């Protein structure tokens, strides 16, 4: 109550007449702020964002002192950018408020000082008094053409409208943009994300290492979540993938265009393109399963505001050398040094799961990997020697040593994120799109007209204003002429009513 009285006692009119306020209520100011933001965006598009400074320098990045001084690798977190974005938000808030006040007053009365300059004049061959003609014209506009009358203080001039009010729609989507900015703000302050690797059958507790800006600024530590996640199964699927025999050089491509050669799809034996990877997940709270879902890329799982995404997978294999009971564990695409072997062993991606074949059939893949030996010559150059396919319990020999695969293991890598900005952005984004589409693609008409007696005949003086791509002035005039002609026709008394 006290707050309300205090708000009421503020001199709002005084504030609205303040010079700074007026500047913020201007469209020009919005353009200037948008221009400043573009400057930041361009910097952000040129300099790699979130890159580590050392990596940037090592890769030959210049302007180092500028980069360090202005924090150009993190430009969207700099005070400059945040201030510019906040100023635009204030500008938009003030504009939305001001436009609202104008619209509210306009919907009650239309301005009295309206200058009426007719665009079109139609003689009304209706054979009635001016007043009756007024009723007929009103009827035509309302009943036949779907217009609604607007309250207007001036007696002689009539105003009618048809379609969604474009002004309210414009206001609506500007307000939606403001909500979007609020959504971004919520993400900026409260969102956090991390990753978790799950092995099949294991129950994992979730303790994010990352923390949102809000908690960070209060010195809070990340909290372990009060539920556990179990991966029941991890599923990989592949597509059989024909390679296209097609030249890269432009002349040969031209030759194909001329019909001198044909492009050809070829199927090498091991051509696998990932089709999908899926995790069968269970969420456990206390001792109960509270949620079950098989997630895949593009289809995440949400629980208590946290969303889990299928991000990647991790593949591990156990390698045995000769009959040594202790085996080595390595990840695919990592180099493995084995004592007694000149060079490093490297295993390619494990292919397992289902293969969807080109001819429409499916096949269970006999799990395998491809091994390679990497050696460095005296000049320091690396050479890769392909050793071939290795299946479970299969072996190959290098320097008289027998290398066998004893186990293939796959883990699912999930990223998870808490982001309260997303629902706000979703709903304001949808509203923005609907309002903008109705405004731009729709049709809105306003007609202003007056009837005048000229040469003993009533005349309709008309002005049309349209908005929206679908609005068609010519069509409106045609319909109007058609309706007027209909009214001008003599009534056939023999025709039953």
């Amino acid at each position, binding site marked *: 109550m006290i707050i309300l009285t205090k708000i009421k006692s503020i001199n709002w009119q005084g504030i609205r007449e303040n010079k700074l306020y007026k500047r913020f209520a201007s469209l020009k100011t919005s353009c200037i702020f*948008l221009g400043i933001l573009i400057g930041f965006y361009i910097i952000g598009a040129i300099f790699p964002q979130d890159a580590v400074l050392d990596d940037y320098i090592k890769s030959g990045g210049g302007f180092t002192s500028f980069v360090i001084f202005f924090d150009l690798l993190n430009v969207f977190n700099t005070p400059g950018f945040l201030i510019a974005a906040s100023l635009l938000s204030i500008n938009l808030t003030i504009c939305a408020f001001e436009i609202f006040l104008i619209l509210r007053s306009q919907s009650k009365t239309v301005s009295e000082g309206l200058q009426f300059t007719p665009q079109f004049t139609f003689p009304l061959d209706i054979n009635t008094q001016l007043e009756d003609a007024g009723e007929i014209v009103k009827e035509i506009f309302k009943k036949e053409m779907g217009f609604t009358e607007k309250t207007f203080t001036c007696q002689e001039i009539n105003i009618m409208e048809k379609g969604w009010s474009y002004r309210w729609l414009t206001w609506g989507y500007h307000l939606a943009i403001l909500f979007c900015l609020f959504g971004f703000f919520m993400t900026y302050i409260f969102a956090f994300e991390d990753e978790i690797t799950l092995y099949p059958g294991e129950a994992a507790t979730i303790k994010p290492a990352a923390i949102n800006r809000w908690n960070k600024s209060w010195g809070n530590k990340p909290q372990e979540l009060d539920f556990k996640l179990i991966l029941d199964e991890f599923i990989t699927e592949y597509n059989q993938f024909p390679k296209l025999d*097609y030249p890269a050089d432009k002349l040969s491509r031209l030759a194909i*265009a001329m*019909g001198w050669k044909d492009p050809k799809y070829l199927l090498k034996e091991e051509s696998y393109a990932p089709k999908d990877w899926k995790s069968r997940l269970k969420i456990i709270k206390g001792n109960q399963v509270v949620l079950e879902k098989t997630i895949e*890329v593009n289809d995440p799982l949400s629980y208590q505001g946290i969303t889990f995404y299928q991000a990647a997978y991790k593949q591990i294999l156990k390698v045995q050398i000769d009959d040594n009971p202790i085996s080595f564990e390595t990840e695919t695409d990592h180099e493995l040094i084995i004592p007694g072997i000149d060079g490093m062993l490297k295993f390619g991606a494990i292919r397992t799961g289902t293969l969807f074949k080109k001819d429409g059939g499916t096949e269970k893949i006999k799990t395998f990997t491809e091994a390679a030996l990497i050696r460095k010559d005296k000049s320091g150059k690396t050479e890769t020697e392909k050793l071939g396919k290795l299946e479970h319990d299969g072996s190959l020999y290098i320097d008289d040593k027998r290398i066998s695969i004893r186990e293939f293991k796959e883990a699912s890598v999930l990223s998870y994120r808490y982001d309260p900005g997303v629902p706000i952005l979703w709903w304001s984004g949808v509203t923005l799109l609907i309002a903008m589409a109705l405004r731009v693609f729709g049709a809105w008409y306003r007609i202003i007209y007056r009837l005048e007696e000229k040469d003993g005949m009533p005349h309709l003086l008309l002005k049309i204003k349209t908005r929206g791509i679908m609005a068609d002035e010519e069509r409106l005039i045609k319909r109007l002429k058609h309706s007027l002609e209909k009214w001008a026709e003599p009534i056939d008394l023999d025709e039953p009513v």
Partner: protein
Amino acid sequence: MSNLETILSRDSYILAVEIRLFWLVALIYGVCLILYLIHLATKKTGPGRMGTNMLWLGVITHAGLILLRTFEGQRAPFQTLYESLSWFAWSTSIAYLYVERRWEDIYLPGILVTALSMGACLYALLTRSPAVEPLSPPLQSYWFEWHVALAFLSYAVFVVSCSIEIVYLTIKPSVKKGLRPEYGLNTNNLETFHRQSFRLALFGFPLLTFGIFSGAAWANEAWGRYWGWDPKETWSLITWTVFAIYLHSMSIPRWKGIPASTFNILGFICMLMTFIGVNWLARLLGIPSLHLYAM
């Protein structure tokens, strides 16, 4: 022949037909460009009219090509850069023909339109792989399909808007001075012609907005993050913001003339940066690209 071999040779055959048809389409756009250039050089309407008729032929053939690609890939035909460039070229030409139908003997905007349509086709044909390949899991999303289709459609509309703007700016002084018609434009129809440019940009803006929105929705589902300040995303935001300034400047009386036109043309340049020049400025300044998804 085994079943698989039959499938592969059938696919190879369809691809060969498709590639040759695509070259033919690029050639038609090229011929249109030449005809429009002859119109520019001679001021005669004949070549311009022929250019437009030829462009109709190109657009119809191109529509067939896009349908063939849809049949070939059994999916929406704009998911690789090769496909989306083709989609862009087609939508640019059809958008132009749509607005052109109400003009009488105005053909100059066709120069930029056909140059870009032909350029996009040649760029796809000469530098990208035409293979119909299985999509990687993150790309298998309806959001992604809408994202590409609508973003490129908006780009097409912006191209036509910009070409009208350029013609208007170059022709205006001589029409105003000489009060005589130039290339079908005269004091009576010049402003109505120019108004199309604004209407097109206004039409494209919600499409681009939806393009960005669906891109964010897709990224949110695929990677759990709706925005990552990747250069491509950032350039599309720049394009969007420049067009927002352009549309606003048309409501500011003192900015309505040259400043607004400049923003429209700048928007077009930013749009080009979005899909072919993402890392060009960085390369020009010798700045390494360490972005994850930079193309």
